[in-house]
């Protein structure tokens, strides 16, 4: 678990907004490079670290997205403030009175907020058009240093709330990347026959599809997608709540290959890794969507890490859940050693 904590401490402090995910590559190189011998980059800049298997083994793609929720500068105002648009789904309420970093020609400190209540007069709602980023600089200097399109990220270092609970910006989906890393660590000690490709996919939040470019690069036989899912907090209603610290969430449904799901349940019992199974009636809303129908179709397994406060700067996950997720993925891959893995993928 120390590996996960070390990785997240660095990764949650590094930037990877959509379109500039390459900024975090040095961190990924340093960690995945310990276990993976090969590297490839797709036309959409997804970063794929891999360990070759033996011939006849399956080609397995693991997928977690490396892009994080961000804002983007759309305009410099007359007074030298910045207007922003969201990249990915962001509730503007979480952007009031927050410290940020602006990645222009230099990296600058800023504050994002709205006008105080006495000057607003419009009512309670927070709207993007009312938010401004303050850099404390005169307008000419801002125009020179901050071009339109510059990413804006929360200025927040990750830290542990307890021994097990970590909070940080971008845990969606660095938690998934960390789980892939843990899986890589376990497989490096216990090499599978399959060729395993860890795709740190770009452009998942919002309109892109970096995972699709990875599928076309790798041409996998099956994929294991690792994303985060909304964990229980008071006030969150509905059946099938998943709780932090009670193990990874493993959904089943039309997106998920049934045999792979059953195999995961079986492995969970055998290895005593607790899981929380969930019926996913419709779409799962993550990279599974673009992977499963690529080319001739790619059977998918999905393991999610419960996460609180998704798409806000204060996301929280359980480190143990991440570790168990990685272990489960590694167990699934190892279980595909030997002949017969192809039958698993037939309907």
């Amino acid at each position, binding site marked *: 678990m120390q590996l996960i904590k070390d990785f997240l401490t660095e990764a949650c402090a590094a930037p990877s907004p*959509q*379109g500039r995910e390459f900024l975090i590559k040095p961190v990924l190189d340093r960690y995945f490079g310990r276990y993976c011998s090969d590297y490839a980059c797709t*036309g959409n800049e997804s970063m794929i670290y891999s360990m070759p298997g033996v011939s006849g083994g399956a080609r397995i793609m693991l997928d977690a997205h490396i892009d994080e929720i961000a804002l983007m*500068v759309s305009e410099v105002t007359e007074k030298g403030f910045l207007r922003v*648009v969201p990249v990915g789904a962001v509730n503007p309420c979480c952007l009031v009175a927050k410290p940020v970093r602006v990645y222009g020609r230099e990296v600058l400190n800023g504050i994002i907020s709205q006008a105080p209540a006495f000057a607003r007069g419009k009512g309670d709602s927070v709207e993007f058009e009312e938010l401004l980023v303050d850099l404390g600089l005169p307008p000419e200097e801002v125009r020179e240093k901050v071009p*339109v399109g510059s990413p804006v990220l929360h200025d927040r270092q990750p830290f542990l709330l307890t021994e097990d609970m970590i909070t940080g910006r971008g845990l969606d989906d660095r938690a998934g990347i960390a789980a892939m890393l843990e899986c890589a660590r376990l497989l490096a000690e216990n090499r599978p026959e399959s060729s395993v490709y860890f795709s740190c996919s770009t452009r998942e939040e919002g309109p892109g*599809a970096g995972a699709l*470019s990875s599928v076309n690069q790798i041409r996998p036989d099956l994929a294991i997608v690792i994303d985060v899912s909304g964990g229980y907090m008071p006030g969150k209603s509905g059946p099938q709540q998943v709780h932090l610290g009670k193990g990874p969430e493993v959904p089943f449904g039309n997106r998920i290959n049934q045999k792979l799901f059953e195999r995961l349940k079986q492995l969970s019992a055998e290895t005593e890794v607790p899981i929380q199974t969930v019926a996913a009636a419709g779409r799962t809303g993550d990279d599974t969507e673009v992977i499963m129908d690529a080319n001739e179709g790619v059977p998918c397994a999905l393991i999610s890490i419960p996460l609180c406060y998704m798409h806000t700067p204060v996301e929280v996950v359980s480190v143990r859940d991440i570790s168990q997720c990685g272990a489960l993925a590694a167990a699934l891959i190892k279980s595909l050693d030997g002949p017969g893995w192809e039958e698993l993928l037939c309907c």
Partner: protein
Amino acid sequence: MIFNSELMEKLACAYGPSGNERHVAELIMAELEGVVDELYTDDAGNVIAHRKGEGRKLMFSAHMDTIALLVTFIDEKGFLRVTNVGGISPTALISQRMLFENGREGILVLDKRGEKKDIDCAEMYIDTGLPAEEARRWFAVGDLCVAKGSYYETDEYVICPAADNRTGCYALIEAAKARVPSVFDVYYVFSVLEEINALGARCAGKLLAPDICVAVDTTVSNDSYEGFEISVKLGSGVGISAKDAGLVSHYSVYGMLCAAAEKAGIRTQPYACKLGATDAGGVSKTGRGVAAGAISIPTRYIHTPGECFCKSDLLDTVRLIEAVEQYAGS
């Protein structure tokens, strides 16, 4: 560079709804005859013009299609009921003249018999000026019609139908004709079905597998009373998209576009917006991923019969395409 009013008028007034672009395709093929090394239409209906070159494959994409209405029913009075093809704004089309492939016209009217407050296609019908039996002879369920408008220009501006995206087509045509020496292997793709999820461009992208794709399309502006939040004005240069609703532009492509513009001294307006999508988003997802971006002609009143743009912005767009072909590298 002189504004080619004749070409723009021909393009703007051509009938070419999403799903039936062939008249525009023919027009474009005629314009580019003998101008490029290869000229053909692919299986999807896109017009592909290839200027052979040594370097990486660069694909420019401008869509030929416009939004349209599709006839779903002919009622007992001979009125045509319709549904939308692409992002129609019903209020923008009420009382407008609609043009059909056979050259006939009708007028789009609001059906006021119902109680509904919101106008959508179900509350509209087209009166073609024919009695029911005649109407059934000349029109059929499945016919597509587009808003009819006329071309009008002043010294600096143009008001015409279909500036989205016949201005993009104009830009590609004029750039192809200019034949500037290029560091790229250049493909000009005049795509179909952009208004429907960029289907045409995605097919072309898969076929050509370019290294870089730059969409040339229109973008909204904020210098009228339409109320759009975007830092773009007419007459201030070519829009360069950092982000729109369909794509976060690839950092390398965005940089390439800005650098080429600066080198050639072309005015640009970088923007990041929540609205609008181009062919670039679709093409970026093809194959192993394609580095993509978009340049845009600022346009008011998009998706109405009277769209308005500034001639100098369109000419700047042509210059920018030429500059990218010549200079892009850093």
